[in-house]
């Protein structure tokens, strides 16, 4: 397969209805809608973007949206794609990509645990890290970690001094 450049990749994706922006010579970001992003990821996988490095969430509380970010890389083209999908904050449900990448299972479990985002089709969304957790998912912006620590562990903002 020929190596493609960032520019041709952006054109190719634009022809498929995906908006993108260049971040650097080897990195782009792409915005996809929540309805058909799995198809796009599948397409990317077929043209050589076979390495899913991470899935992470971002909480845009001002815009009332969550963003799920898929970090995809191609060993052949040496291009990294930051693949972003926005979902509403009230009903954070998104399709799973476990069928494309097996390790997505654990990344999705993690995102679910930390953001409360549901991945439809993922069979096991149990907690990996937290135990006995009844509060808001901790990485949401409206979860106040300092207040939580103060109430449960008795932490003080200024240490033992004040």
């Amino acid at each position: 397969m020929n190596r493609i450049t960032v520019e041709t990749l952006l054109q190719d994706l634009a022809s498929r209805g995906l908006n993108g922006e260049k971040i650097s010579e080897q990195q782009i970001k792409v915005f996809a809608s929540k309805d058909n992003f799995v198809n796009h990821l599948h397409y990317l996988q077929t043209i050589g973007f076979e390495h899913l490095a991470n899935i992470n969430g971002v909480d845009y509380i001002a815009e009332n949206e969550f963003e799920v970010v898929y970090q995809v890389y191609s060993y052949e083209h040496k291009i990294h794609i930051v693949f972003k999908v926005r979902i509403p904050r009230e009903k954070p449900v998104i399709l799973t990509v476990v069928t494309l990448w097996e390790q997505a299972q654990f990344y999705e479990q993690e995102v679910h645990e930390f953001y409360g985002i549901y991945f439809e089709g993922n069979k096991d969304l149990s907690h990996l890290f937290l135990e006995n957790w009844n509060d808001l998912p901790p990485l949401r912006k409206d979860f106040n970690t300092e207040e939580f620590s103060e109430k449960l562990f008795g932490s003080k903002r200024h240490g033992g001094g004040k």
Partner: protein
Amino acid sequence: MFNINSLEQQDNQDKLWDKVINYFRKRSLWMLHYCTGCGAMELPPVMTSRWDMERFGIGPMATPRQADILLITGYSSVRTMKRIIRTYEQMPEPKWVLAFGSCTVNGGMYWDSYNVINNLGEYIPVDITIAGCMPRPEAILDSMLKLMDMIQAGEAKAFRKYKENYAYYKANQDRLFMERGPVLESAALRYVHEETEGGEA
């Protein structure tokens, strides 16, 4: 609850042969090989040839049932805390706890984290605390030597406090581990998803 007299009584019971026992006890300490946090990174140099703690008769031990020293190497998350307490209660007496690093005193780096306890002394009694993030191997050896001195002098008796103030420790432990409701009011904002029949169209 905390009765200072009972401690003194026990101290008075220490006879001459206790001193002899203490002497041999301090020369043969088994340290539980459980790395609870990042401070465990400085243990390999201490355990192996560079600083070689076997010069003082301290050796690593894999099971809590045969160990004398429990090292809390740095921060402990809520899940680790549960395992620490189980381990600690399995250890036979006399037993000693060394707390490494700032995290065990006042939260350290993770003072505002939602998953790290702030003060180890609220959950189990601690004999010696070492500041540093993380402490140097020399500091670890220093603390071990200090512990040996304390054992010889019969001062290292934190494990007795655990029994005497068990209600206090237990209450603190339960606060973390028992089924509890949400800590913050914001928990009401949680979204619970109900699987729709046949999935989303």
